[in-house]
């Protein structure tokens, strides 16, 4: 695999070249620190180095630098994940060696559902975990959990979800005809819940009164759709594609058609982990951001699909995962659609994403009272770390941490969250 021939920062042709470059950087830094410039030009680089090496432990300095910011506090880690394609960077970093390259021995553990992953992470059985991006916000605010300061240093994926309906509803494509439908979403605190509510509300249905929304773990959704227990779901992939593969459902809309570029899942860790083990946290975050950067490149998608489909990870037929990642997929109605950005991977945790999520939590009554939107967003979505590490792995981080976007044509200004909540006709707040 060409992965192993390139270097850990992605800027050099090989690891050897990367190391040589790094060593040279350290040498220069030391020289600059201890030798006067005029002396340096007088002596020449190598002579000066030899002189410095006599009293400065240059070898140790180089080694310390190669290990990143410092020594890893903990090398063996457990990271929990839910078997869905959103977790691609977290999962693929294991079989494709991203963790190992950053000196970590990570065990990625498949987990049954979001409530379990939350409890196992709060219990410290897991050092960090794959979560839905609203979860760290909810945990921090103590909504549906004991309040524990939580952080979300990286988004996993953008887009990549869909509304799937049972095949018997082939003719009922207009949401206005969905009164009485039973829908499943993976969790109450999920983008899926907020996007589905948003979508039906924009079509004039009240998500609490006109339809029923229940939380069902992704793994159980297709089985429930097949049994006619539910009429449809807004679910992460590969669940949607699997419903098509098994002939029980069809893809009504992709989530990118609701909000192009929306965040979905996230890499999350407790504030305690981030502050007590800074080096481990950085190595872990860097592995995941590097994996996301690799997954971002379209030409790598087939290779990734083959790496994460086996029973140890997603446990799905390769073709299902491949259709999700490549965006060339069967829609369940007999058409082959080509949507290359059906799912994409962009680790940057925009503060404005957090603000939008908080507005929806407020809108549907999950949050009571006053919310300091900007402050919570800043504390939970760690954009500074992501900016630095994205640059280190060769991605271009954005200059600002906030951006405006529009969801189904309705513009969102992250500086005016309160007005945004008030502007909706259907709301609980």
């Amino acid at each position, binding site marked *: 695999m060409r992965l192993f021939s390139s270097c850990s920062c992605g800027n050099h042709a090989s690891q050897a070249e990367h190391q040589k470059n790094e060593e040279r950087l350290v040498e220069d830094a030391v020289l600059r620190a201890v030798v006067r410039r005029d002396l340096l030009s007088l002596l020449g680089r190598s002579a000066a180095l030899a002189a410095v090496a006599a009293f400065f432990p240059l070898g140790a300095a180089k080694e310390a630098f190669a290990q990143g910011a410092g020594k890893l506090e903990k090398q063996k880690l457990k990271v929990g994940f839910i078997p869905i394609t959103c977790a691609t960077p977290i999962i693929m970093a294991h079989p494709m060696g991203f963790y190992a390259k950053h000196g970590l021995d990570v065990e*990625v553990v498949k*987990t*049954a559902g979001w409530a379990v992953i939350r409890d196992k992470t709060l*219990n410290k059985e897991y050092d960090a975990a794959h979560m839905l991006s609203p979860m760290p916000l909810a945990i921090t605010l103590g909504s549906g959990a004991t309040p524990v300061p939580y952080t979300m240093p990286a988004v996993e994926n953008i887009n990549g979800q869909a509304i799937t309906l049972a095949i018997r509803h082939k003719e009922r494509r207009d949401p206005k005809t969905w009164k009485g439908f039973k829908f499943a979403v993976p969790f109450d605190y999920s983008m899926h819940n907020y996007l589905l509510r948003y979508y039906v509300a924009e079509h004039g249905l009240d998500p609490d009164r006109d339809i029923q929304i229940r939380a069902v773990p992704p793994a159980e959704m297709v089985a429930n759709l097949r049994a006619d227990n539910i009429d449809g779901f807004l679910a992460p992939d590969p669940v949607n594609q699997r419903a098509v593969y098994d*002939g029980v459902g069809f893809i009504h809309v992709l989530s990118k058609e609701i909000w192009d570029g929306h965040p979905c899942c996230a890499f999350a860790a407790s504030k305690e982990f981030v502050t007590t083990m800074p080096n481990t946290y950085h190595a872990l975050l860097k592995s995941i951001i590097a994996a996301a950067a690799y997954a971002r490149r379209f030409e790598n998608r087939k290779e990734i699909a083959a790496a994460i489909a086996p*029973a140890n990870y997603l446990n799905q037929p390769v073709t299902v995962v491949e259709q999700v990642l490549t965006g060339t997929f*069967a829609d369940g109605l007999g058409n082959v659609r080509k949507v290359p950005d059906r799912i994409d991977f962009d680790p940057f945790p925009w503060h404005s994403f957090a603000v939008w999520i908080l507005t929806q939590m407020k809108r549907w009554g999950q949050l009571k009272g006053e919310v300091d939107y900007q402050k919570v967003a800043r504390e939970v979505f760690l954009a500074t770390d992501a900016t630095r590490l994205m640059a280190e792995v060769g991605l271009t981080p954005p200059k600002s941490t906030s951006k405006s976007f529009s969801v189904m044509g309705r513009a969102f200004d992250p500086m005016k969250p309160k007005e945004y909540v008030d502007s909706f006709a259907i709301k609980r707040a």
Partner: protein
Amino acid sequence: MRLRLLAGVLSLLFLAVLVGAWHLATLPKGAAAAADSEYAKLVGAQAAVGAKSAFPTPADLGRKLAEHVSDPFYDRGPNDKGIGVQLGYSVARVLLGFLLAALVAVPCGFLIGMSPLVYRALDPFIQVLKPISPLAWMPLALFTLKDSNVSAIFVIFICSIWPMLINTAFGVAAVRREWLNVASTLEVSPLRKALVVILPAAAPTIMTGMRISIGIAWLVIVAAEMLVGGTGIGYFVWNEWNNLSIANILSGILAIGLVGMLLDFLFSRLQRAVTYTE
């Protein structure tokens, strides 16, 4: 002897009828109009002809079973282990939870059985706690014990404790008065009385309680593991549910049945060993 043979033949006949009916019911239906080949390649064989994916045939299950039996102990990472390894995890959890429960239930049962006062005082607690589904304890256990593995063992503990406790108390209370009177006349120490007179007398009833408990524990572990995941046969079934692989789920179900039968057999043997005739 003749009866046994006949019963065996009849059992095989039942099995043959069952598998035959299953085979006929899952025969592939005549193919409808197939979708175009590009689309067909992207979906399952059934979806390509406009149907839902089908229930596996007996032959599918046979192939899967052969696969599992030929390599039951493989280990391809934390989330993919052979069916034998998974069963091992489940049995270990059940035995551990069960033993802990026995350590608590038998002495407590003795105490309750020997003292009518304690019996009356604890009865309301037992009556309320007994009918609670062990899985209802799971969220509470996860929250307080802060470890999913310990929680699973706790759930086994809590579900196997009641039958043992009640049966022990009942067995101890039902020891014949004459025997106790004889022991008193001979001025046997209370400890000796408990071990030499009451325990053997109550043993069959206690063993019955244990047999019921282990049965319940085995039922519960599958559900508990489906809930928390990680390892065990329950996780195996859940993971294959995730993959909608009915053939694998059926293999898991069969394995659960066989191990359950073995456990029950083991305890029926123990029960026979302590049974006495007056």
